[in-house]
């Protein structure tokens, strides 16, 4: 009895300890900042493209009139302030304001406020034109939702640049060096949520494919590249290599299904992330979904350690690390 009791006590303690380390460790917000920079650019571009046929998509008598859209809404709780804008002039005004906010979010000016507004805007646009949505909008919403939870403007932003300038001036006055960052628990929570959400997305993407015969008989890749409406680069010459096509189909399913497990251990993480690159670039280049392919890669960036991000994109500030300071990345549970 004692043995069983001890097991549960140990299980409880390990779970609590692991949970706390997983969520409540303060980390350098470099990764979050990089994700904000790239996701912000994607959000800005995505919404900029709506401008080409703004009244068609969002007007009261356009492609998706609110009355016809009722039958296609996935949830009765779907909301959007755009449903209530009836005048084209007001629609354009709201759209331009939204674009300005998304641009400021992209460059990281007043990031905490812009992040909340960017999320509201992203959600409102996606819910208003649900008939024109696809995977891109799903990931855009997800990234915007989590970026607003952490200090997404603490790195690679106008905010951080301004802050550093202020600090440098203050330190110069005292004759010191201002090469430091503020660790953040909320930054860690935001990154963790992106990571876990990515795992859920890939798990169900993989499980969905398991239901399909073409992913079992290996013809799914052929059916994808032979779809003329998706096709941007003609890859039908691959029909001469059916073994290769079926291998890629099986690899895709195996990768998606195992992502939620293999992306956590440090040894397998680089391999899992490396495989994401050809998979999503393939979708981007051959199936014409450049934005979707790129936004999935942005989501995968959440698994890149802040140390590596600093080393690659902020070498000036990572000098201290090169000199031998800790290089640990924030994955305490898998360590």
């Amino acid at each position, binding site marked *: 009895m004692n043995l069983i009791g001890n097991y549960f006590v140990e299980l409880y303690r390990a779970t609590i300890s692991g949970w706390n380390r997983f969520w*409540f460790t303060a980390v350098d917000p470099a990764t979050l900042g990089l994700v904000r920079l790239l996701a912000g650019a994607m959000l800005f571009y995505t919404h900029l493209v709506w401008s080409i046929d703004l009244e068609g998509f969002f007007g009261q008598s356009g492609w998706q009139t609110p009355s016809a859209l009722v039958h296609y809404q996935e*949830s009765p709780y779907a909301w959007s*302030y755009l449903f209530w804008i009836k005048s084209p002039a*007001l629609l354009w005004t709201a759209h331009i304001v939204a674009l300005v906010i998304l641009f400021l979010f992209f460059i990281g000016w007043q990031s905490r406020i812009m992040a909340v507004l960017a999320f509201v805007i992203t959600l409102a646009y996606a819910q208003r034109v649900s008939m024109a949505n696809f995977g891109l909008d799903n990931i855009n919403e997800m990234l915007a939702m989590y970026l607003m939870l952490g200090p997404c403007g603490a790195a690679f932003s106008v905010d951080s640049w301004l802050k550093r300038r202020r600090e440098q001036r203050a330190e110069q006055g005292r004759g010191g060096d201002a090469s430091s960052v503020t660790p953040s628990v*909320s930054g860690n*929570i935001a990154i963790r949520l992106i990571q876990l959400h990515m795992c*859920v997305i890939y798990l*169900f993407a993989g499980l969905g494919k398991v239901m399909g015969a073409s992913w079992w008989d290996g013809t799914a890749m052929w*059916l994808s590249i032979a779809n*003329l409406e998706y096709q941007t680069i003609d890859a039908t010459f691959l029909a001469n290599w059916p073994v290769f096509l079926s291998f890629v189909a099986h690899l895709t399913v195996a990768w998606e299904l195992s992502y939620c497990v293999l992306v956590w251990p440090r040894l397998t993480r680089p391999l899992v992330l490396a495989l994401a690159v050809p998979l999503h670039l393939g979708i981007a280049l051959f199936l014409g979904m450049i934005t979707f392919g790129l936004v999935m890669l942005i989501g995968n960036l959440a698994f890149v350690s802040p140390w590596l991000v600093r080393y690659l994109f902020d070498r000036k500030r990572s000098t201290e690390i090169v000199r031998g300071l800790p290089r640990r990345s924030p994955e305490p549970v898998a360590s």
Partner: protein
Amino acid sequence: MFDLLAYTKHLTGKLTAACLVAAAGNSFLRWRSEVDTDLIMSRHSKTRPVAERKLPVGSEEPPAQAKLSAKWRAVISLALMFHLLAVFFAVWNGAPPFSPFPQTVAMPMQRYIGVLNLNRGNRFFAPDPGPSHIIRYTLTMPDGSEKRGQLPDAKNHWPRLLYHRYFMLTEHLNANESEAARKQMFKTYAGEILKQSGADTIEIEFVQHGIPPWDVYMNGTKLDDPESFRKLIGEKYQRQDFMDGGSP
């Protein structure tokens, strides 16, 4: 024009709630992680607060979790568990086939899931990459001339994201099982094409474009073989048909 009263009601009902929750969560996490954690810590220790004790770039702060009080960690943990459950069951429920178990679990979270738009299936190219759906039309212009077009149109819809938006309009048209809803949306599309083109009449058809199996293709069938296109809906509308509904 803009219905201010209705808009205000809507805001107070849904949007404001969503914004408040988001803003409160944002402020809360920021406050907890960057200010209050330091206060809690400084109650028990004489070390400098974290926000002042800056970290070397790229590194993490190992003992930081100890600085949040157990009460606040519990509150945040409950919120995280609720959200992650909502995400998981929303995606599980996001596409058929549906099981009663995830539907029952997700039921109390429907409002949360709906407001945050979490109910996406994420079944990309699943269960099988299928045929695509397009709209083809012939317009009769006021001068009697005819113009042909299609939705989406890779030659005229640029950038590619715009093309894909139109493509999704036609793909989602096929997704609804209700024939009446599908025809209503089909007519809405016809009205918008008439409005944008300035034509008098439109002859429009909703077409499914099948993909030849690998062995059929290897035997010489082309991807744009006329037999691979199948008409699902075909209608003819005049400008007058849309005058009541406000479009075109």
